[in-house]
């Protein structure tokens, strides 16, 4: 249907358009992906469209960071309050943190390298991709969209840029977690007081632990929307060019010069 039939000779193909979105192989810089995993475990995997791994690692991070008070430890350490940092960290949880954190970074790096190889092989195989998917609940198709518009919508509300380019799993993820974290961190009251110039009030109302989660997720949403718009556009060009070569290069076309 949307994928090459099991009986076909195609081994690798570089994109799949499903109801939930366009999943695509493309070249990625492994250091950039690893860096996003360092910023927040799971985000690197989500950029690779490896949603299940990404959600697992992300939710693990949310839970363990909360239980072990990692963010408070970071906050107090960076501001020179080392005794408070020591007291903040919860020893029942903190040692569980490091292995999975490092795994997330390492695994996203090596997965990127592997997927880059898969991409190169898939692009050499150059198999066709179905560019249109319609069913009873959604329509997904390749189209040209503007990267900066995707970024701008995600800047206004994380997840909207993802909806614009039809990436439903990451749209759910971004909107859901951003709303939860904005609520728990009291981001908006703090923003309100900051804009009114009541800085002390803003500081006292905000929840430090949850607030420190926000920068990574917020910026990531803009980045993800932008990057995927660019790549979807490239996929569109590639698919259309393939279609034209196949259908509009008739062997006996009367060329305007004598052979």
């Amino acid at each position: 249907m949307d994928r090459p039939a099991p009986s076909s000779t195609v081994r690798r193909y570089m994109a799949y358009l499903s109801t939930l979105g366009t999943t695509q192989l493309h070249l990625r810089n492994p250091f950039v992906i690893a860096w996003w995993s360092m910023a927040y475990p799971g985000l690197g995997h989500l950029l690779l469209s490896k949603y299940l791994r990404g959600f697992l690692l992300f939710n693990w991070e949310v839970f363990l960071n909360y239980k072990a008070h990692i963010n408070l430890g970071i906050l107090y350490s960076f501001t020179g309050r080392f005794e408070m940092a020591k007291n903040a960290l919860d020893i029942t949880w903190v040692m569980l943190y490091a292995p999975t954190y490092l795994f997330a970074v390492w695994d996203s790096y090596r997965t990127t390298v592997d997927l880059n190889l898969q991409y190169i092989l898939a692009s050499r195989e150059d198999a066709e991709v179905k560019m249109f998917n319609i069913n009873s609940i959604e329509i997904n198709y390749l189209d040209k969209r503007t990267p900066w518009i995707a970024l701008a919508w995600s800047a206004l509300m994380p997840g909207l840029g993802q909806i614009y380019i039809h990436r439903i799993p990451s749209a759910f993820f971004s909107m859901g977690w951003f709303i939860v974290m904005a609520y728990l961190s009291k981001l908006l009251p703090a923003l309100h007081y900051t804009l009114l110039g009541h800085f002390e009030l803003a500081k006292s109302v905000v929840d430090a632990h949850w607030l420190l989660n926000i920068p990574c997720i917020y910026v990531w949403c803009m980045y993800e929307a932008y990057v995927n718009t660019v790549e979807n556009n490239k996929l569109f060009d590639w698919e259309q060019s393939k279609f034209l070569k196949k259908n509009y290069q008739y062997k006996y076309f009367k060329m305007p010069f004598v052979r």
Partner: protein
Amino acid sequence: MYIVSTFEHSNYLELAITAIQMKGIAKENILCVPMDKRSEDKKLFDTLHSADGLSLLDLPIILATVLCLLGGIYGFILKWGPVLWGLIGFFIGFGIGFIIKLITTKKYNNRQKKLKATEVVMIIDCNDNQLDMIKDILWEHNALGVSKLSLG
């Protein structure tokens, strides 16, 4: 009689082709030549570790996140609080990253300017009396350039 036109890849190109076919031009009389793009094909297989055109945004966004986080942290002990310092950090980080990227990859920037390059060349073989009709269709569908070619 030939009509040569150039397009960018878009849905309008396919709309133009199908509109012309509906006017009675056979598929066999339409020739499309999609152009390989210089930057992409050269960079594509460069190395496993190099990303592609989007690397312009990578550094700015990384620095923006780092400084946003640091701004949020030190905001707790600075006067303006974590929200404002987080935002200040974000913009400073993004600005620094962007400037570094612009300086270090000037060449990349020049290539970006040619974004409206021809991506597809289309040649249509038709009669004299179809000429204007086809030209109109092509212009209506965002052709970058249209020209007739009559030899002899």
